[in-house]
């Protein structure tokens, strides 16, 4: 019995194994890579196109007058959208005043006091469902809950609609960042005899603050740009909220209960206008709105980079 001796292998053509674009397999792989790369770059074109048009078309009209004057009538020249800027700020402030405290408190409960309980799961699931709520339905809800109750379109009605949209973002990001606070910080505080509330307020929340603020800023950025929920809750107005006194004084609260202008609704109304001046103002308003939204959004993201790691 002799063992079979392997044949010498020099004769075989090893160039078979070399990678070459002439082979269909390698060529296919290369082509798909190029295709994906090109699709990724193509997806950036809309953003660049939007920004380019906003700056060139919107920038033309943008002056001090845009922020201090009222929307022009059909054929009138000039004008601005000062009341819409104020209206957007007021309604986003109302929405934030409602959604930020309640969102953070709920997040503290599901991340800190009752994690892994049935309640936490239900709350989390409901918040995720709310994330997917179409913004127009938040408007329908606010219409039924506030406008029908108070008998008219108003800034608080718009604020409630925006608050429904902000709540899940605030809640879910706050929960995430509270959960990322290292357990040893909590344990140190407990070891020093702090009550659970003191642990949360003095140690956990300050540590999670960058992440929580990120969520708040992302929610604010989203709310500021929303149009659909405001269409039939705040409607629109060609006038200032109050011409006599600042909005935060109680005696002018009555003025808040009237239809209120917002940048987003102004853009929508003027986009279909047959008059050039109004269309140009819509572009200028869009530039201001996108600038606000992107600055707040990017600011929030930069805060997130500074938050503590796991």
């Amino acid at each position, binding site marked *: 019995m002799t063992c079979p001796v392997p044949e010498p292998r020099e004769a075989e053509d090893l160039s078979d194994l070399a990678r070459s674009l002439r082979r269909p397999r390698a060529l296919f792989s290369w082509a798909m890579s190029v295709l994906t790369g090109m699709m990724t770059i193509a*997806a*950036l074109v809309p953003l660049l196109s939007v920004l380019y048009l906003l700056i060139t078309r919107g920038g033309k009209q943008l002056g001090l007058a845009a922020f201090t004057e009222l929307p022009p009538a059909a054929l009138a020249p000039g004008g601005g959208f000062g009341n819409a800027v104020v209206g957007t700020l007021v309604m986003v402030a109302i929405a934030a005043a409602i959604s930020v405290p309640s969102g953070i408190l709920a997040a503290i*409960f599901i991340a800190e*006091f009752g994690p892994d309980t049935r309640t936490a799961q239900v709350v989390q699931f*409901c918040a995720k469902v*709310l994330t*997917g709520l179409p913004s127009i339905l938040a408007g329908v809800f606010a219409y039924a809950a506030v406008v029908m109750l108070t008998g008219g379109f108003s800034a608080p009605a718009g604020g409630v609609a925006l608050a429904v949209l902000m709540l899940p973002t605030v809640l879910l990001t706050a929960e995430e960042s509270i959960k990322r606070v290292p357990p040893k910080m909590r344990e140190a505080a407990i070891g020093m005899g702090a009550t659970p509330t003191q642990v949360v307020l003095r140690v956990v929340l300050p540590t999670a603050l960058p992440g929580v603020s990120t969520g708040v800023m992302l929610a604010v950025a989203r709310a500021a740009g929303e*149009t659909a929920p405001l269409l039939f809750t705040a409607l629109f107005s060609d006038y200032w909220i109050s011409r006599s006194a600042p909005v935060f004084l109680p005696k002018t609260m009555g003025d808040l209960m009237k239809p209120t202008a917002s940048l987003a609704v102004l853009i929508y109304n003027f986009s279909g206008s047959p008059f050039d001046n109004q269309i140009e103002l819509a572009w200028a308003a869009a530039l201001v709105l996108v600038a606000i939204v992107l600055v707040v959004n990017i600011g929030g993201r930069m805060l997130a980079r500074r938050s503590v790691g796991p």
Partner: protein
Amino acid sequence: MGRIAQIRSAASPGPVVSAGRAEPVDSISRPPSAADVATDRLFRAATRLMAWAAVALVFYVVWDIAQQAVPAMREYGAGFLVGTTWDANKQQFGILPAIVGTLYTSFLGLAIGSAFGIAIAIFLSEGFLASGLDAVLKALGLSDRPGWMSLPGWVEDFLKTTVELLAAVPSVVYGLWGIFVVIPLVRAPANWLNVHFGWLPFFDTPLSGPGILPASLVLAIMVLPTISAVSRDALVEVPPKLREAAFGLGATRWEAILAVILPTASTGILGAVILGFGRALGETMALAMLAGNANVISWSMFSPANTLAALLANHFPEAGSVEVGALMYAALVLLAITLAVNVAGTAIVTRADAALKGLR
């Protein structure tokens, strides 16, 4: 004051140490005061209350809209869902064209958005930039410079953020952009298709202005960030050993992606597409501005159409009380569709995460 002085004297080391024995000192620790305990109880109750308030809000939203829709449901019944006219003067209300238009624009937008979204997710998760840069550096003979290697990660982060910023631009701004950029841009090719391929039902009307195609294109841009972000999460979660095993067997990069990585991440990607679908169904402003607000049912993607959300946006501000009832019914239909889609999407993404945990 007295207490602090006491603590200071107890803490000062001098006499205690010199005495050389453990002197009993007043402890500064104390049980939480009654006020502390009360605050704690109150605060915990407040957080529990707010957590349940978030749950209650979901039910309240559903209940509130349903309750407003009840009179219209009694009056119009199921015929509302298949009626084709919406005329407030004759009090005839039907939302079939809006339902069809919602599904048509959403599917078309979703198809385009998914193709790009998944391509982006693959591009940003499979290290294309790193290997591409490597090849370029090798060709230039610079491959021994380690300083370059942080560049691909940086570019990937930048691209990821930029794609996410697509979602930050308000939809009304996309609508404005669509009116002045997308519609003029697609009009010529659309009409060419209509002239030459008009026998296909998809192209059998000319595009005069607003229509399904421009609306769907803008919709695709708006769902793209959702799809790419969620599918990228799914792709990154694929265990590296699967990828390495495929490469070890001699697969090319795309053979590994198509045969191993995509199938493994498919549940997560499906969830991403369904979540994107949920977004597309509820998207309002871009469609109200670009779809044409016409109660038409047509196969043609150049025909004007209507969607449920656009119907609400266009008719609600000026509606009388009868029409508001009908609109509430339409809102309830939209709510039911989006809730079902979102619950399915969330459940699938959660299940995909759990399944991948088993693989690791």
